[in-house]
């Protein structure tokens, strides 16, 4: 084979590899963009939560990060995908069950504040910045740079086996 042929072959290989890389990379990027990220205020003192820990926090069983720092849940209003995914994956409840859970908790005085409903990801992110100790769930591609994304079981959105896909 001639050098030019070799170069052509290598060029083709590169093209195929690049195509394949682009193909696979773009698919991975698209998958990562559809994952729901657990975003936290910078004051939140953890970077990684187990699924169980995260579930306890979401159920209101853990209400404080530290003695001076409350957990504030910012949850999207019904119909939003983030909410549906949250109810399905963590709460394992339907919408009425979720509502009843918090009403009961409030009336049993097991908590003084429940999750705060937000109507959009922007609102969630806006409040997240404002409220120390707050966490919210937004699509991973909507997370602005600089915000703290907490790992679940050591995985970030886009990672294989991530809980909120």
């Amino acid at each position: 084979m001639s050098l030019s042929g070799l170069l052509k072959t290598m060029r083709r290989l590169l093209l195929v590899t690049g195509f394949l890389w682009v193909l696979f990379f773009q698919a991975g990027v698209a998958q990562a963009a559809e994952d729901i990220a657990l975003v936290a205020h910078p004051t939140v003192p953890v970077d990684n939560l187990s699924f169980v820990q995260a579930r306890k926090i979401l159920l209101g069983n853990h209400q404080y990060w530290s003695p001076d720092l409350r957990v504030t849940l910012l949850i999207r209003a019904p119909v939003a995908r983030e909410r549906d995914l949250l109810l399905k994956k963590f709460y394992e409840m339907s919408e009425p069950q979720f509502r009843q859970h918090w009403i009961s908790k409030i009336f049993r005085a097991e908590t003084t504040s429940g999750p705060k409903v937000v109507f959009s990801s922007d609102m969630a992110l806006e409040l997240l910045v404002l409220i120390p100790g707050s966490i919210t769930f937004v699509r991973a591609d909507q997370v602005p740079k600089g915000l703290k994304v907490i790992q679940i079981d050591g995985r970030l959105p886009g990672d294989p086996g991530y809980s909120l896909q």
Partner: protein
Amino acid sequence: MKIQRRLGLSFLLILILYGVNLGLYAWGNQKRSVSVEVLQKALSRQVLFSSIKQKLSNIQKEVTLLSQVMAALAAEGLGVNEIKHFRAQTALITSEIDKLGRLSEAEMSREIKSFEEIYLGLSQSWQIFYENFGINHAKAIAELAVRADPVSTHLMVDLLPRLYEEEQMRVETAVLNYYQVEAWAKQMTRVIFLLTILITLTIAFFTSRYISLGLSKLKEGAARIGSGTLHHRIDIQSQDELGDLATSFNEMGQNLLSTQEALNEAHETLENRHQEAEKQRQNAESLLLNILPQEIAQELKTKDRVAPKYFEDVSILFTDFVGFTASTEKLAVDELVLALHDYFTAFDQISERYGLEKLKTIGDSYMCVAGLPQRKPSHPVDAILAAFEMIDAVKKRQVSENPAQWSVRIGIHTGAVIAGVVGIQKFSFDIWGDSVNYAKRMESRGISDRINISDRTYARVKDFFACTHRRQLSENKEKTFEMYLVDDILPGLKDAQTLGPSLAFSERYQLYFQRPFSSHWQKPIKNTEMPFES
């Protein structure tokens, strides 16, 4: 201390105790009122705490539910009514906190003030939440999450429960204090009441005992003084009324004793004088009786005078010693008087035994009368019996040792006489009448140691005595005296042993004169058996 003062002080002490009791009761009531007031305030605060807590909890729940559950339903914000209702609730809570502050004490008030300030901040946050809810939702949630939730949690979880707990402790303390005050006041009231009763009883016991003992001593002392034990003294040394009374009693006793001693002395003096007077009176009476019959003397004493009395039937007895004139030449005067005294004393005794009344002696002549002043029909017999004994008495003295050996003539006549007292200084009871002269004649015409009686006398005694008739002419030969010499008692009436009246004599005497015969007869004694008493 005077009893009045003691009683007054005791009464004052009891009053003070009652006053203390009353004061304690009032103090207890006041403390109870304060306790009740504190308790009421505490309870009111507790109610307010509960109410505030409940309202805060309600709002918090409402806010929490709104923020998480109802948010989707209120996308266009809350209505005017909801906001108005929220404001009314917060205003009500503010009002109740204000009221709580007013009901609280200074220390608590500061905490309430702090609580109010925190609540006001919370209220503003909630208001921002309500006003922005559904409109500027992010602001509402941010306000809620950043400010309201931590504050409300602090209020509901920390501050309010702590205040409520403190208030609960205050209520418990107030209740405990109330019961303590109640119990203490009751206990003290009981103690003072019992103390009052005890002191009252003690005072009553000792006072009554003291007065009773004192009065008993006074009563006993008065009784003893009253019964005559005037030297008795009441032993009460106290300086009170009882002591004064005892002193008065003792002084009275001393005065009575002095008076009694003086009275005794006066009585003794009077008694001596009385005895002396009595002695003098008896002497006088004796003297009077010597010269007057008892009845006459009595009449003279009572009436100062004696009315002349007529006695139609008496026996007059005269004696006259034979040999007296011769003796006057032989004997000294005092011997003579002594001898006369001896004879007449014997005659007096005999006259007295037989109830004859001696009238007088004239020289050696002795005159007595039977049958007066008490009238008795036996007087002639009595006179003769007495005459027999007079002769015996004279005979007894006819012994050699006697320098005045006389015999005696006795004459008796029975008849009427007038009797009376003459004179005002030297009384003299005497009788007057022919019978007296006749009796004198019977004596002068008699025989030595014999009894010469008149025929009238004889007529009265002939059933008792044996007599020998005699007859004599008067000096002028114009009148004849029929006389009898009494020989002896009739043989049938004479006792063989005593030679005096026998039982038959006595029976006859009683039959004739209707009166018992009391024999005064004394057995004649031979001259040798009777020593002469000069």
